[in-house]
């Protein structure tokens, strides 16, 4: 009996001790979420969705804001590499400028999964999950041609020149519109994806080309800036404004007839996919598609009821 009791006590002690020790060592693995800027609601949604999905998968996730500054981004990567992170969900500041950071992470055996913005290399990030900007802008171009009946003049506000998204959007749009000789582009300038900058540029464009029929903008922030300039010039309702993103204010503006159309991106899908890929990588999976385009959908006054900001209505 005594022997049995002491055996039971020993087993209980072992169980208690092992549970204590496992509690001590069971700290969660960490995933870093590096976002180009949190000064734009689109990227806030992207970062939050990535963090949330990583946490749902059982990881600790921390968001780093690069403030659209490549040096800041490098500082973040330096910290992340020395702090035991297991993966990086990355929204780069620059297709070329961010390469060194991803290379440093790769050399430190930390897998990088790009979200929304592409880096100009195929062999550094494990996977890049990106909006299909080109196809989205083909849809916008088709709507643009239809609404203008293939005739008229327009201007274009480009995004950040060093961002591949800028050119994929512009080229998708022009792949349609340039086939119609009745449509003439009067000016093309960068608004740097920024609302205030776009408003200033649009004001100058309106002074130089007061008779334009439309403006194509590389994102929704610029579309709202362009709308402010058009409104101030007393031309609201006379110039068709096109955006890209699916931001809340643009969805409302489409409903109110202030903006003609936008391309709906799905940042939550991109962020969640990146987090899931990172989780699989940490668990040992090694085969991933290097580039994963995510479809973009056309939102106009006719179908705006099917959408909310950055996604479909349930």
């Amino acid at each position, binding site marked *: 009996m005594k022997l049995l009791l002491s055996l039971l006590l020993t087993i209980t002690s072992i169980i208690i001790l092992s549970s204590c020790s496992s509690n001590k060592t069971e700290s969660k693995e960490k995933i870093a979420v590096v976002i180009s800027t949190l000064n734009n609601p689109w990227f806030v949604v992207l970062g939050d969705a990535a963090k949330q999905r990583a946490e749902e998968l059982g990881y600790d996730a921390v968001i780093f804001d690069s403030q659209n500054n490549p040096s800041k981004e490098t500082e973040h990567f330096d910290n992340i590499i020395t702090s035991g992170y297991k993966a990086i969900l990355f929204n780069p500041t620059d297709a070329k400028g961010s390469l060194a950071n991803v290379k440093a992470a790769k050399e430190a055996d930390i897998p990088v999964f790009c979200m929304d913005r592409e880096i*100009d290399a*195929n062999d550094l990030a494990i996977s890049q999950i990106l909006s*299909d900007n080109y*196809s989205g802008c083909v849809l916008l171009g088709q709507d643009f041609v239809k609404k203008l009946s293939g005739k008229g003049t327009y201007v274009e506000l480009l995004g950040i020149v060093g961002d*591949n998204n800028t050119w994929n959007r512009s080229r998708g749009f022009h*792949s349609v519109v340039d086939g119609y000789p009745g449509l003439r582009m009067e000016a093309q300038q960068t608004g740097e994806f920024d609302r205030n900058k776009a408003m200033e540029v649009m004001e100058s464009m309106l002074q130089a080309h007061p008779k334009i029929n439309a403006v194509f903008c590389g994102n929704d922030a610029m579309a709202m800036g362009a709308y402010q300039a058009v409104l101030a010039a007393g031309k609201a309702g006379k110039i068709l404004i096109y955006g890209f993103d699916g931001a809340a204010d643009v969805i409302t503006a489409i409903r109110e007839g202030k903006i003609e159309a936008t391309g709906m991106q799905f940042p939550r899908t991109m962020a969640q996919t990146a987090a899931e890929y990172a989780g699989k990588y940490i668990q040992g999976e090694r085969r991933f598609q290097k*580039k994963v385009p*995510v479809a973009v959908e056309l939102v106009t006054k006719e179908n705006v009821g099917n959408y909310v900001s950055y996604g479909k209505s349930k």
Partner: protein
Amino acid sequence: MKKWIVISAAFVLAVAALYESIYFERLDAKNAKEMIRKVSPKETAEYFWKNELDGILETAIDLKSFDSVLAANPRALVQRYGKAVGITSNYCFLVKGTATRIVREAERIPAVITNGHANYQLVARHIYGNTARDATGYFDIDDFRNTMDFNTLATELNAIIVKEVAGRALNAISPGASMHFIGAVEINADNIPTEIAIVPLKLEAVR
């Protein structure tokens, strides 16, 4: 006996691990990938058009079968024949059938299909988007240096179609005449349309 079981299990595990770490690909596929990385999207499109397209067109589905399966079970159609790139509800297919040219200057040419569930029209001008590229199922986005090259390839392929098919081949077919076609279509699996555009990849007069 037990020893043999352990050895066999270890062998199976080793083979599985090896399979996970390496995979084999056909030499011609490997060469095509290498070529894509080295040359411009325009050259890739031209090479594909001259050397690879004909074999791929043999896999096209008869338009009447496509139409009936689309109406009865679009999910099955997508699963069996649909081709897509990335995360999307849009799927591309190769279809074949006949169409009749009614007038010389037309944006679209109706395809002949009796009791069809949808209306099908060949696009005769203004060809854009990724439908032709993706319906062939030949190109892998990972073989391209960046997404811009992958998209430029679609533009270059469309330019060839405008010139060679919608231009040269179509011009050889008189108004009133019928033609066999093989083309590419794109369908949104969540929202099946009733008007479906076909990007022509091959046209031949019915003799």
